[in-house]
């Protein structure tokens, strides 16, 4: 595919949404659109107010100019709400060839392919889904989409919604707060350890991959949950903006792991705000892998508010041609004995660009805290670029800080070493890249890491995108 056709992505390959749509907002956004979204969903008044206030803030806030280039986003050219129909009639044949080929290459089953591609909203996994739900219900765990969560559990949602990430936080959090739809609501009662990872894509019939998802996870005292979103197969979408918000509460002694494997199609601006508030001896782990999109700006963060709280961000960013992955992490130490660890691995090739942007702040009260940051960049060729923007604000003396940053090129000597073992160049590069990200991939579930490795090999061979 050449560059020009990419510009016409929507036109050339776009799904024509069937006329039978229950509701589709007009293009662009104003107060009436926000009100209408809330009205259609029959939301309580407080949520409508919340949306409207957030919308005001969205209008007031300038476009962030400190990171990736966002100048091409046209807010007037976006549909902010489309109520899903029972069945989507767009056809598999209409999909871009490259997306279909990639599905085949990574071996996604037929039914799943259509689901992922948005062709079918019904992923036939009901049996599995139901048995998982049954077990969760027995334990008192709530796992549903956010709209359902608001309808059924208004008191829990109201207590936490927007408290971890305020709509004042940044322009895209404001936008999400105004027009959010879909996303997940997870509530884990005290002491419950959820054995099976909760996978966003089990939620059939929900707007899993919506543009403005809103996810809220509450892990009560001593509980554990692992939430996985996304998948390695490219998510094809005609909408060019994905602005999600993920809020997580990790209560005392609880542990939450949130794994993301993002592979949006390469027309998408992926601007996501993710934050966790971690109480005493709680543990929050973000595992974040970004392969797709045109631009990603994402800095999962942990606010370590309780004594002994721990935060971790393990991330991988891969930027290929016409991509900019501006990713990183934020760790805010607000209590004594807190610890944080950031491991960031970025790879840029075929003219792609990666940036690591990180903030670690240790407040005066956070005595005896420890900070570990390592960000490694791998640059595959001369046309590609990598930058590092680490910020450390350490405001007391009793902190153990370790910071390491490396930039390396895929060395000729290593490639020759592998060649001398009979491994051809593209395979050798794939092996080295997968070795480079291994400290992170070993943390994600096996089936994901295998697919991730394969996908990176495909990207490197230039056969995708």
């Amino acid at each position, binding site marked *: 595919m050449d560059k020009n056709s990419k510009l016409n992505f929507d036109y050339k390959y776009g799904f024509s949404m069937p006329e039978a749509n229950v509701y589709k907002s007009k293009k662009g956004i104003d107060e009436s659109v926000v009100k209408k979204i809330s009205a259609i969903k029959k939301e309580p008044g407080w949520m409508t107010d919340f949306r409207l206030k957030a919308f005001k803030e969205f209008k007031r806030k300038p476009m962030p100019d400190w990171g990736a280039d966002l100048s091409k986003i046209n807010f007037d050219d976006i549909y902010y709400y489309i109520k899903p129909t029972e069945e989507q009639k767009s056809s598999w044949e209409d999909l871009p060839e490259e997306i279909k080929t990639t599905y085949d290459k990574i071996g996604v089953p037929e039914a799943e392919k259509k689901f992922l591609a948005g062709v079918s909203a019904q992923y036939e996994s009901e049996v599995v889904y139901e048995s998982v739900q049954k077990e969760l219900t027995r334990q008192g765990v709530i796992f549903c989409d956010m709209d359902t969560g608001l309808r059924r559990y208004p008191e829990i949602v109201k207590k936490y919604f927007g408290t971890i990430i305020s709509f004042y936080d940044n322009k895209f959090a404001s936008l999400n707060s105004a027009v959010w739809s879909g996303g997940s609501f997870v509530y884990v009662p005290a002491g419950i350890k959820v054995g099976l990872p909760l996978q966003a894509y089990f939620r059939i019939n929900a707007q899993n991959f919506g543009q403005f998802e809103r996810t809220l996870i509450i892990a009560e005292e001593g509980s554990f949950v692992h939430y996985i979103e996304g998948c390695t197969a490219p998510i094809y979408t005609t909408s060019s903006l994905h602005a999600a918000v993920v809020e997580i509460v990790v209560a005392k002694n609880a542990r939450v792991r949130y794994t993301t494997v993002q592979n949006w199609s390469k027309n998408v601006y992926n601007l996501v705000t993710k934050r966790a508030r971690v109480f005493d001896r709680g543990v929050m782990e973000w595992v974040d892998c970004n392969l797709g999109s045109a631009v990603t700006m994402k800095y999962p963060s942990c606010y370590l508010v309780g004594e002994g709280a721990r935060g971790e961000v393990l991330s991988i960013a891969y930027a290929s041609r016409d991509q900019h992955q501006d990713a990183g992490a934020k760790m805010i130490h607000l209590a004594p004995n807190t610890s944080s660890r950031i491991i960031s691995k970025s790879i840029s090739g075929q003219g792609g660009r990666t940036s690591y942007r990180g903030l670690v702040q240790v407040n005066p009260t956070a005595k005896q805290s420890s900070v570990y940051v390592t960000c490694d960049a791998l640059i595959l060729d001369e046309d590609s670029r990598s930058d590092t923007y680490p910020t450390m604000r350490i405001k007391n003396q009793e902190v153990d800080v370790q910071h390491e940053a490396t930039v390396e090129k895929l060395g*000729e000597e290593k490639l020759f*070493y*592998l*060649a*001398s073992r*009979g491994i051809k160049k593209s395979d050798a590069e794939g092996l080295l890249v997968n070795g*480079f990200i291994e400290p992170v991939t070993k943390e994600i579930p096996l089936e994901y890491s295998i697919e991730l490795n394969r996908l990176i090999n495909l990207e490197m061979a230039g056969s995708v995108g």
Partner: protein
Amino acid sequence: MLKLKNWTASVSGKTILNKIDFKFEKNQVYALMGPNGSGKSTLAYTIAGHPAYRVDKKSSIYLNGKNISADSPDKRAKAGIFLSFQSPLSLNGVTVFQLLRLAMSGKKDPLTVKQEIDGIAKKLRIKSELLSRSLNDGASGGEKKKLELLQAVVLDPKVLIFDEIDTGVDVDALKTIAKFLDQYKKNRTIILITHYNRILKYIKPNKVLVLSEGRIVKEGNYKLAEEVERNGYEMI
């Protein structure tokens, strides 16, 4: 088995190897000696096809009668040439199994590769923890050289070139390596590049070659190596 014709190579315009003509035979162990800078490593690298060296257009290399001069390093390796590095690099996040599984894909199934690795590691007394670690990461000199030999055995090459396999290796490791090689040499060509005849005590070369200023200046049997050890290269 391996034939070099008019083998001339340079790096950054400086000629290192000068019109070498030589035929390495099957079932033979060669010791390639020579002072520093005589071109020993360059000879090894150019046979393996290292892209940093420019090999003269009139030079050619044959493996079992087949001209492989135009082949890339990976093709030469696939054809049966193995190079054991003087200082093997460590590969982050890549285990020896991952490397060999990829190298042998289509030839041996991963399970066979795994079993072979375990078997050879035992014979070479390679600690099993080294196998699950990144290749060569935190390995001692001797362990690295053993891991090179292990790779060679799984890859099953016809011509094996060991660039200073005896450097940075303690006596016990050296004995293990040499004894293993001695049993392994049948039906293959082994070229040992070395400064000393330390290893040659445990594996007797059929032929000793002395390289100087990019040429093979002397050939002989193992006694030549002893002579070199006694008198240095100057007498040659």
